[in-house]
């Protein structure tokens, strides 16, 4: 026993213990620093990921390809079944296509009548998914486009059909997409026919719940949900998904984007929405001849900002 204890004391010398203590303190300090000044540490994190992950790319592509090959092979086994399903779906789609074509023509006519100018700024950059978050606790993916391609924090990301998430963290050659399913994702949305506003709050499930709904009775499963553009966060009217009622009786969202396989994602170049702050200037001239009459119109205008009406449509 005595020899045992000697050996142990020899192994864990006081100096070593001190160094370990310093190391632990440094790490906890890093955690506190992150808690206090998160943006700066997150920038460092994006920098590190930008260095590390793309250097894995040569290995990632073949391994991912192989795994997809295996899953594709599994799906070949269900080919006949799939074929039947697809044919039936195609039948449905043809009907829809007809309806869509008619609607498109009608839309074009109406737009022409209205002289609508579509937003020319809404262009996109397409990126390939390099890596996922690597842990079941975070729902995010890494794209191979970054600051080099002009990506900015906060831009919305879609797959071909619906919203998938938003950019959070940009490195030189890569950027991270916080998916809608992540627990820290909150997106303002509008529920289509009733025009109600809600917040789509990710909770690490595939069907995130809708929060802060004013009148849940007027919402039915199947309603379309689009981004509302509130707070200038996203451009309005990007499709997000459909309302479903979850097993817990909450209103949840079936996302339109295909989260089963996120491979190519579009980053929308979202321009800063023009804000109208000076309400008075819209009614009265900007530099009135004398300053006295300016206050009256400004007050009237204040309870209803012009040009920012509720999205009832």
């Amino acid at each position, binding site marked *: 026993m005595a020899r*045992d204890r000697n*050996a*142990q004391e020899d*192994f*864990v010398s006081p100096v070593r213990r001190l*160094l*370990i203590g310093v*190391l*632990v303190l*440094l*790490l*906890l*300090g*890093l*955690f506190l620093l*992150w*808690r206090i000044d998160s943006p700066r*540490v997150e920038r460092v*994190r994006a920098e*590190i*990921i930008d260095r*590390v*992950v793309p250097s*894995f790319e040569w*290995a*990632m592509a073949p*391994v*991912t390809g192989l*795994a*997809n090959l295996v899953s594709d092979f599994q799906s070949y086994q269900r080919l006949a079944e799939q074929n039947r399903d697809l044919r039936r779906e195609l039948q449905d789609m043809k009907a829809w296509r007809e309806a869509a074509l008619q609607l498109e023509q009608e839309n074009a006519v109406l737009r022409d009548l209205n002289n609508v100018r579509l937003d020319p700024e809404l262009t996109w950059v397409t990126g390939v*998914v*390099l*890596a*996922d*978050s*690597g*842990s*079941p*606790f*975070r*729902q*995010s*993916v*890494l794209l191979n486009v970054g600051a080099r391609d002009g990506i900015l924090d906060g831009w919305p990301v879609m797959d071909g059909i619906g919203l998938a998430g938003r950019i959070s963290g940009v490195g030189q050659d890569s950027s*991270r997409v916080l*998916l809608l*399913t992540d*627990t*820290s994702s909150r997106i303002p949305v509008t529920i289509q026919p009733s025009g109600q506003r809600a917040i789509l709050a990710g*909770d*690490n*499930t*595939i069907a995130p719940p809708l929060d802060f709904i004013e009148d849940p009775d007027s919402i039915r499963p199947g309603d379309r949900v689009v981004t509302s553009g509130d707070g200038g966060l996203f451009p309005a009217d990007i499709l997000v998904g459909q309302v479903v009622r979850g097993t817990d009786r909450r209103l949840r969202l079936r996302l339109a984007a295909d*989260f*089963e*396989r*996120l*491979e190519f994602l579009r980053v929308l170049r979202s321009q800063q929405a023009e804000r109208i702050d000076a309400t008075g200037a819209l009614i009265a001239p900007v530099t009135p001849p004398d300053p006295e009459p300016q206050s009256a119109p400004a007050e009237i205008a204040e309870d209803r900002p012009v040009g920012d009406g509720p999205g009832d449509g």
Partner: protein
Amino acid sequence: MAEASRRRIWLGRGIYAFLCAGIMFLHLLPMETMPRRWGSPDFVLLITLAWAARRPDHVPALLIATVFLLSDMLFHRPPGLWTALVLILTEVLRTRARSLRVVPFPLEWLGIAAGIVAITLAYRVVLSLTVVPQAPLGLTLTQMMLTILAYPLVALLSFLLFGVSRPAQGEIDSLGNRL
């Protein structure tokens, strides 16, 4: 002689670093973009604990800190906290390594399990004290349970593949030092 012993230690360290990098790489592959209801076992943690309990000289503290800090960064965990907790646990294991060696395997397993539970709870407590948004409790608990259950497997594999055995009492290396 000294050269051989040192080479073995460095080989052990290299294997450890390589394994951890490999596991992290597999985690990062973009094959799972759907949220899951359960967390898979944390193999990096398991390997670290098994080696810290069995061959402490193959996993120096600085290497552990580097590996876990990198995984904190890559996996979007709050940086530093998990690393610090794991470091403390491995230091505890390191000081007990000699006594862990003589007990039967179930007791070693029990000790490791207690350690994993302790750091998981500490992690959640600190996160809730600092009001950091957290993952659902169910996910953490399933991951903890699966991690604990997978320990014998990892111990067995690291013995079979890399020869990380528990040195018998009085076993000496080529230099004549006690292991």
